[in-house]
């Protein structure tokens, strides 16, 4: 399994556009990918799952991937996360 943790810096948190980009990107991989926040874990390929977490500014989140392309998934999602969303 591969994983990476981020602190959200965007003023509006993970809202529609970044959420859309993350889910779109996650959907390109075969691995099971989750987004973990405050002890809850959702399918990162599910827009409703991601949005239902209500991730705001300052939140600490972890992305986990498990499957044949897990490393690739994490590094692709890392690019999306770094586009003004987190550090």
């Amino acid at each position: 399994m591969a994983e990476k943790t981020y602190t959200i810096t965007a003023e509006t948190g993970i809202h529609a556009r970044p959420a859309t980009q993350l889910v779109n990107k996650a959907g390109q991989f075969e691995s099971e990918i989750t987004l973990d926040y405050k002890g809850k874990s959702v399918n990162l390929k599910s827009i409703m799952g991601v949005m239902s977490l209500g991730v705001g500014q300052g939140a600490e989140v972890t992305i986990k991937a498990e499957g044949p392309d897990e490393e690739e998934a994490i590094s692709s999602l890392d690019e999306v996360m770094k586009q003004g969303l987190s550090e």
Partner: protein
Amino acid sequence: MSNSLTGIAASAGIAIAKAFRYEEPDLTVEKKSGVDAKAEIQAFDAALEKSRAELEEIKEKTRREMGDEHAEIFSAHLLVLQDPEFVDAVRQKVQDDEVNASFALDEKANEFIMIFESMDNEYMKERAADIRDVSKRVLAHLLGKPIVSLAEIKEEVIVVGDDLTPSDTAQLNKEFVKGFATNIGGRTSHSAIMARSLEIPAVVGTKTVTHDTKQHQYVIVDGNDGTVIIDPSDDELAEYRSRQEAFEQQKAEWAKLKNEPSVSKDGTHVELVANIGTPNDLEGVHNNGAEGVGLYRTEFLYMGRNELPTEEEQFDAYKQVVESLDGKPVVIRTLDIGGDKELPYLDLPEEMNPFLGFRAIRLCLEMKDMFRTQLRALLRAGAFGNLKIMFPMIATLEEFREAKALLEEEQQKLHAEGVETGSDIEVGIMVEIPSTAVMAPQFAKEVDFFSIGTNDLIQYTMAADRMNERVSYLYQPYNPAILGLVKSVIDASHAEGKWTGMCGEMAGDPIAVPLLFGLGLDEFSMSATSVLPARSQLSKMTKQEAADTAAEALKLSTADEVQQLVESRFPMA
């Protein structure tokens, strides 16, 4: 037998066409058990596919016509359609319970809607609406009752609906939609403002038009006086056709003034400029011969989307407007959000008195990062034309000084970065709070100009919520109290060699125009379609007549007396 309704005249002109009832189909679902699960799942997948194709098309059309940002919302809708947690749950339910797909879909969608609606966050609550939208589309296909879009109208109609949202009106095709009539809304509601920008006759707030109108019935919409006639008699049709013609002739008369200056009979010049909401309104500004833009409401850049606009996006929009005006003045108001205009993604707590609460400059001085981004975009766009910056809802000099200091800081930063900005950009304020009107002499020493926002100045002076129909009688632009405040603001600016404009509805009102001209107002900013009528009106009066009338009006006791005085001195066409 014809039926006549009275609503609020929201956008001038007369339209006659068949009714197009804009409403949602009945999507009630019934539970059916013991179904052929495989066939139901196939039907569900087919409905998903049709919905996906539709949404792709809408997204593409929106992107083409309104830009990437507006299209984003449909990307999110498309993801809902593909959401594995959602669609798999529907398939699973059909499989396990052997129920029909429409029932399973309705149930699963409602589960998600409940989750989002129960969240303690306005933004998330609005996401429930997205899920509802998407699942309705799929459900409509499953039930064989596809949802009609306003963009698909291909014959001349009058759209009749409960209310039209900004995105509904954005989809209207002017070629076919001749007018619209709604149950709810007022002169300053979004649908009304959009109708005036699009120059489509409209009547809003009829309360019952959807109830009284059948599909394809003939409807007359008179946006000049607020009348809607359903199923008109031959006599009524003939009557309104001739009125329509007269109005068109009047418009043609006005059009001759398009390239003329705005001067009174004795040659006194004032500026007649237009209010705009988006760069799309520029066409109306040019077609109506406005001498500039007196109010560019930037909040539309922030609305109907899910996050703040970037500096680049804002810069592009502001630059487009100032360049298009080619050296004519463009007064841009910084973000005026709060009150009746919400930005769900800022997730601001609900307030008891939003009009008296955390809004406009108050909010911007608190959310400084957001404000600085806008100021930078404005400063940069200032290099491309005659841009002026205006702060809304200023109540104290400290607020103005703080906002101006932020502006100067950003200007210095930009210069340090080697970025070009406008030089000598005028910085003014909206006068819409009575304390500021009273303190105008002190403000006039520090600001470059005033623009009186009458919609709010009247509501705050009369202590009457302009969204509350039961106190709407207190919305009195001609009340001598208002005229007195307007006069003191104008006089204070002139004493310091500054100028005063007005950007509320009052500036284009035929009763108010002579009074304001008489009080010495320098700039009148109004809906673009009011510019030519006002120019025509102005050309028929002298400054002296107007000043005498205004002086007399200030001594009267009631708004009605003022109106009667003006009507007796300046007979309306």
